[in-house]
């Protein structure tokens, strides 16, 4: 009896150790929010579909963290590079007035080569700065966003729906996707139950597809080599894997995923925000994957999925519930504390032995 007890306890402890306290606390908190919601007059159906739409919207941006974490490049704070490629793709597709799924597809198609290009450049930077990847990534991302702000003013886009009406040049700060390819994925095979519940099937299929592709990639020879470079560089080198090359491949992959993720984000959001809009977009994605249980040097697809659900759940539920209960808008502060607290937790957790 005693032994069985101990075993049982050991099992729970092991589960908690595997799952991590922050994740458990956040999951319980989220559950609590959903339980409270109906009592203060919040419709669970609406909240649930809001959350699902946001998961579909942000999932691939979170997925873009995985290749770089796996290859030992740390958290991809340089996500804005991919985002910029996604923006250029979207704007170019819109310049030609392409609509519907075709317009969306063309945006992705335009975005990918640029993302590859930016990714190769970023990869070289990352290799120059081994050990300082995250700081460099942050500032390379910021620099590119600021540089593109100058470019948005100057690039020769002419479609009157995109540029400032007054001067006829320079892209607008916010461009609406209405009439182009707004919500084409979200509405694709969408399931509606009752007046309030909406399931964005298309976005989920696309997200799942990307997840499967990334998962399958890490089963290929290149993918295994990439993980090896991240977890044991000496071993990888001994087996003839070029560390630097693998790292560049991982950065390119992350950047391409970021670009695709951004186009998906835009179609769901319905607007394109240029100029300083993408500046801080890496942070929610970083926080989400960490919330999902990833560390600085290991991430799985399940981390992505769990993390996106938890993080977006918190983001959707806290404002409505807290505002309903306290009549304040304290949710923004909670968002800042939760997301940055999560990043801090991850940065301090694996503090030993990872200094290169």
């Amino acid at each position: 009896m005693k032994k069985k007890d101990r075993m049982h306890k050991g099992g729970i402890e092991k589960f908690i150790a595997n799952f991590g306290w922050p994740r458990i606390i956040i999951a319980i908190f989220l559950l609590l929010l959903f339980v409270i919601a109906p009592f203060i007059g919040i419709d669970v159906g609406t909240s649930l579909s809001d959350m699902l739409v946001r998961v579909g919207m942000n999932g691939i941006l979170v997925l873009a963290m995985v290749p770089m974490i796996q290859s030992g490049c740390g958290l991809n704070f340089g996500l804005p590079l991919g985002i910029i490629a996604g923006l250029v793709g979207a704007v170019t597709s819109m310049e030609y007035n392409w609509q519907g799924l075709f317009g969306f597809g063309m945006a992705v198609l335009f975005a990918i080569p640029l993302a590859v290009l930016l990714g190769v450049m970023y990869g070289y930077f990352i290799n120059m700065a081994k050990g300082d990847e995250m700081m460099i990534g942050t500032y390379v991302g910021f620099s590119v966003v600021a540089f593109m702000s100058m470019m948005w003013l100057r690039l020769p886009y002419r479609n009157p729906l995109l540029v400032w009406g007054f001067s006829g040049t320079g892209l607008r700060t916010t461009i609406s996707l209405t009439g182009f390819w707004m919500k084409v994925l979200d509405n694709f095979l969408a399931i509606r139950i009752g007046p309030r519940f909406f399931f964005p099937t298309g976005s989920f299929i696309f997200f799942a597809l990307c997840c499967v592709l990334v998962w399958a990639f890490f089963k290929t020879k290149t993918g295994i080599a990439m993980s090896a470079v991240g977890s044991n560089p000496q071993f990888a080198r001994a087996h003839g894997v070029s560390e630097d090359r693998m790292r560049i491949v991982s950065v390119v992959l992350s950047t391409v995923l970021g670009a695709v993720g951004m186009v998906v984000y835009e179609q769901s959001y319905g607007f394109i925000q240029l100029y300083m809009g993408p500046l801080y977009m890496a942070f929610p994605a970083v926080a989400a994957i960490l919330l999902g249980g990833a560390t600085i040097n290991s991430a799985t697809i399940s981390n992505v999925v769990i993390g996106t659900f938890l993080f977006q759940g918190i983001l959707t539920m806290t404002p409505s519930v807290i505002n309903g209960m306290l009549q304040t808008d304290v949710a923004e502060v909670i968002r800042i504390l939760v997301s940055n607290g999560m990043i801090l937790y991850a940065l301090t957790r694996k503090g030993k032995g990872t200094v290169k």
Partner: protein
Amino acid sequence: MKPKYSLKGALISNLVPIVFLMFAAFAVPMSGLSIPYLLHEMISRLARDSLLVLSLVIPVLAGMGLNFGMVLGAMAGQIGMVLVVDWGLGGMPALLVAALLGTPISIGLGYFCGYILNLAKGREMVTSYIIGFFMNGAYQFLLLYCMGSIIPITNPELLLSRGYGIRNSMDLPNIRQVLDRLVSVEVFGMDIPILTFAVIAVFCLLIVWFKTTKIGQDMRAVGRNRAVANGAGIPVEKTRILAIIISTLIACYGQIVSLQNLGTINTYNSHEQVGIFSIAALLVGGATAENASIANVFVGVFLFHLMFVVSPMAGKNLIGDAQLGEYFRVFVSYGIIAVSLLLHAWKKRHEMLERRLLENDGKE
């Protein structure tokens, strides 16, 4: 082999100020701004920002890189300022009381920041950066929700219309430039705030003196090599926490000096940019994440702000678009941090490879 690399290192560490000087030489005539105007601006800005940038020197000495957590000090200074304004104080007493209020808050925040950075050794910069964001949330919570509800605020003019929470911006009519104007000398029609510069000089001397003390020497040892310092019986973690506390304190005073010069507080924005601008300025001055001197501080503040004042006008005259100049300015302040960190990391890596290569040669 060795001399070649140190020469390269010297060139790289001076490359950044040289590039900026060249840029200034090109952009100053382009902007069409007069030299006296620029000089006046530079003096005002040196008085405003030097102390903030100075706060970054000590953590670099302790091998903790650029302390993005200095925004915590700026927050402490602002909390002090808000309370002082609420109590209706003005003039020099207001500044002193604000500094007095900011001191314990900075020490607390500095301890917190140092403690966390000890958990993330080797990743201090990115961690301190995130700490800044995290504490910004706490700061917003304090000022937006606690002040006026839990913490009593008597002056209703400071509060948002809903009855609690501090307004987004406030003027400091009784505090505006009190330190600058208390003792100032007019030279060629320019007011030179002697007292402000005296305060900055005192802090410079304190830092120089501190470096020569036992603790300062310990700090340098910790910065060079933690393991060796530990072996020599230096309490590594405590020394690192102390470095961050000092940095946070100086940043707090720096923010107070900076706010009295500006005469307004943007309650929720003033501190956010402080970290980025101070770090960019220090790097422009030729410092790296491993080496920063007081000279770097002043050269950096001067060059960075020269670029800051000149580039929108230069952009306007050159391309006919002031907005483009604005973005250029943002681009340069982020780009300079990226490039300096990159050059520095690359240099460090090459030195390491070089050393490894030499060791292997020795073995064979």
